[in-house]
């Protein structure tokens, strides 16, 4: 589907920018202003991606392009949000709550941090002069699509997590992004830097009310030092009418480990790009995901694991359960660069189709430029196994219970490797509600 230049989304953002620019965080920093200006220019030239872009072949963003979104945050009544925050809070975490794109200190509690650890609002950092952010702000955004550019130009806040070498965060950082209003576009931007040997768990959690048609366009950049480890869990529970476009990219140092879990349950159109570059020797990347769609949801995951240097290991497992007229897209790209000898990559995508109307488009993609490698991928699409159903029913379990059991078992794999107990418990309690009712 072509997106005409007269669709209101991009022009709306472009026209909002000039008056907004001076009030955006870090407006006093010339380099930051230049980056924002450049991004706006490229957004004007490029617009939003269309299905003619290979990366967006199966995902039309026409529904986003057709809407005019406001970018001004209004004061929110904290009491209304408080209930939502409480509902989504996860025990035993350091919490930062962002409402309509901005940190609300009154709802946040980062707890006592060990020396060398900083968990703050990116807006504050930018307003205070940006620290040494300039060098690691650069993220190769030249290749960014319209959503990445809009975020780069218009971001107002997000988390800044900076761990000095060797620092270990005992409790996970829970970043809760709440969008409250319809027709609002928010652009959270998170920067996470984990020094050599440092370790942290970050939960990036997106929620919103079911009735609101808003756009959450997020960017998360993660830099791992030598031997560092980060577990990043993305929990997407946007409202049923919300639009969600996320871009998570990690750059790994030597012997570092990047563990990513992505759970996508909400949104009418949700897209997540999760990429990691194994940029030094001996890196490890583990990506797993679960997407559950029903009604007319469209859920898209694009992952990219780039083995740039030798002796990297990657493991990827994405599972999907699709019901009613839901549509899922999975594109898993594994690249092994010419010098990345002794790379070892496994990738798997499994999909369960439960209804006549559901649809899956999957493309597990291998690009290998080195010879001393071990790479394999697999993809399956199917329905519940009749033999397994029969087995359960022969033991006196009713059909709907048997189906529910099998669906639950299929999805449960994606929870493996979640270490934080309360998060695990939350996901386990979410699954029955998220998974389709047995038919």
């Amino acid at each position, binding site marked *: 589907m072509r997106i005409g230049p007269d669709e209101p989304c991009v022009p709306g953002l472009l026209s909002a920018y000039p008056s907004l620019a001076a009030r955006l965080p870090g407006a006093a920093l010339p380099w930051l202003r230049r980056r924002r200006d450049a991004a706006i220019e490229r957004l004007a030239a490029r617009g939003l991606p269309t299905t003619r872009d290979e990366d967006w072949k199966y995902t039309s963003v026409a529904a986003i392009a057709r809407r005019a979104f406001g970018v001004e945050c209004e004061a929110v009544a904290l009491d209304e949000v408080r209930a939502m925050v409480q509902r989504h809070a996860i025990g035993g975490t350091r919490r930062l709550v962002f409402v309509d794109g901005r940190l609300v200190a009154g709802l946040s509690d980062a707890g006592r941090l060990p020396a060398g650890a900083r968990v703050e609002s990116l807006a504050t950092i930018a307003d205070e002069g940006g620290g040494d952010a300039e060098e690691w702000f650069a993220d190769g955004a030249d290749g960014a699509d319209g959503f990445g550019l809009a975020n780069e130009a218009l971001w107002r806040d997000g988390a800044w997590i900076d761990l000095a070498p060797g620092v270990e965060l005992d409790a996970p950082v829970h970043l809760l992004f709440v969008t409250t209003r319809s027709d609002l576009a928010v652009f959270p931007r998170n920067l996470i830097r984990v020094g050599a040997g440092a370790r942290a768990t970050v939960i990036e959690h997106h929620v919103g009310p079911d009735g609101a048609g808003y756009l959450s366009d997020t960017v998360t950049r993660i830099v791992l030092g030598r031997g560092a480890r980060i577990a990043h869990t993305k929990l997407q529970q946007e409202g049923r009418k919300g639009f969600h476009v996320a871009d998570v990219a990690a750059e790994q140092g030597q012997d570092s480990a990047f563990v990513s879990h992505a759970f996508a349950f909400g949104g009418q159109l949700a897209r997540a790009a999760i990429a990691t570059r194994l940029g030094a020797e001996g890196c490890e990347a583990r990506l797993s995901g679960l997407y559950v769609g029903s009604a007319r949801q469209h859920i898209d995951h694009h992952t990219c694991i780039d083995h740039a240097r030798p002796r990297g290991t990657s493991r990827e497992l994405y599972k999907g359960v699709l019901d009613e007229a839901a549509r899922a897209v999975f594109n898993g790209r594994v690249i092994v660069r010419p010098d990345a000898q002794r790379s070892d990559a496994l990738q798997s995508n499994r999909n369960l*189709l439960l209804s006549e109307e559901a649809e899956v488009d999957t493309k597990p993609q291998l690009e290998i430029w080195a010879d001393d490698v071990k790479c394999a991928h697999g993809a399956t699409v199917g329905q519940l196994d009749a033999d397994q159903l029969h087995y359960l029913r022969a033991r006196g379990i009713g059909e709907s219970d048997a189906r529910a059991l099998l669906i639950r078992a299929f999805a449960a794999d994606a929870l493996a490797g979640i270490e934080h107990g309360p998060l695990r418990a939350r996901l386990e309690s979410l699954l029955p509600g998220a998974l389709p009712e047995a038919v």
Partner: protein
Amino acid sequence: MGKRSVQLDELISQEYRHGFYTPLDVDAVPRGLSEDVIRLISAKKQEPAFMLEWRLKAFRHWLTMTEPRWATVRHPPIDYQDIVYYSAPRAKTDGPKSLDEVDPELLRTYEKLGVPLAERELLAGVAVDAVFDSVSVATTFKEKLGAMGIIFCSFSEAVQNHPDLVQEYLGSVVPYTDNFFATLNSAVFSDGSFCYIPPGVRCPMELSTYFRINAKNTGQFERTLIIADRGAYVSYLEGCTAPMRDENQLHAAVVELIAREGAEIKYSTVQNWYPGDKDGKGGIYNFVTKRGDCREANSKISWTQVETGSAITWKYPSVILRGDNSVGEFHSVALTNHWQQADTGTKMIHVGRNTRSTILSKGISAGHGSNAYRGLVKVAKSAAGARNYTQCDSLLLGDRCAAHTFPYIEVKNPTARVEHEASTSRIGEDQLFYCQSRGISAEDAVSLIVSGFCKEVFRQLPMEFAVEAQKLLGVSLEGSIG
């Protein structure tokens, strides 16, 4: 991995064996492409009006198209005005009636390639419709086939003698608007093979065409049309070699297969065109559109290909599974050495109920070769009970080669079962060691392992082809360990 021996290097860098050039009188049209050239080609071939119409429609459509850029292949831009679109060996008489009348120069060429027509005719029992450049020069076994009602002839003859069949089926699988190269082919194709198997007839022998590109700077644009009527069976072989040439040559063929109710078509290809020298100079650009249509219930189309030649191969033999219970198969070995590039795969479009497809793709990359599998498995909403199994394996020999896999899977029916598996690895050191410790030389061991890697595909080939394919792999690859 250890150092490679001088001997192995020699084996890897072995030059193309089929490099020779037969000087012949050639009857060619002027360089370049225009409506006049197309009218000229059509007039030379004395075609009925509907053919000229069709060619011109294709040409006009082609002018609106741009060359595709999505494949992972690189080549300098092609100047379509610098190609001779028609070249036929000049007829000394009114055309050969038997092998004795065929230009001995031509026959010697086949001899060098190892397809002595006379011998094949007798010993191998193969009817050869040999395409030398563009016009068929010898068609054998025609009478025997004719008695069974089988039509096997050159495309030009079919246009003259069976215009109704041509008009009914031409472009019904690959329409003239299909893609850049197919559209170009539709406008300028000079000849090719035509085959019609009447209802209930099982073709008693393998039909075979030996394609050959000879004259300098002629693109070869054949068109093959095979129709298996209700309950018919045919096995068709296509083999290709070309002489050595420094300039790149364009080859844009179209193959259309139509299987009606209960019919089966087996189409096998061994492609060994000039791949360019070891520095990547020269070689054939092979941009081919091949598609089969399982038009009615219980039909089956199976593609088997061994691709060892060409500088660039761009080809996706596909099957549209329209009839209920129809079956599509794709078996492929693609080998790239030196600077060869292959972007190949298949499309299985499931439309009918209980349709099944199997894809087995083996890619071997050596030297600076680049090998991509690009495939689509599409299950339409109507294709209840559809089943697909795909396996793509890549073998890497040398640290500067590349292997890519781009499988597209689109499923719109929940009762479908689609499975895709792919693996990429190099020859195991343990396997080599095992063989070598038993006194098998390194190059023999590699050859053995590669043969084993390709075995499942070779098994699908008719016997003569399987032997040839093994030989080709041996020549192109033996000892390619890095």
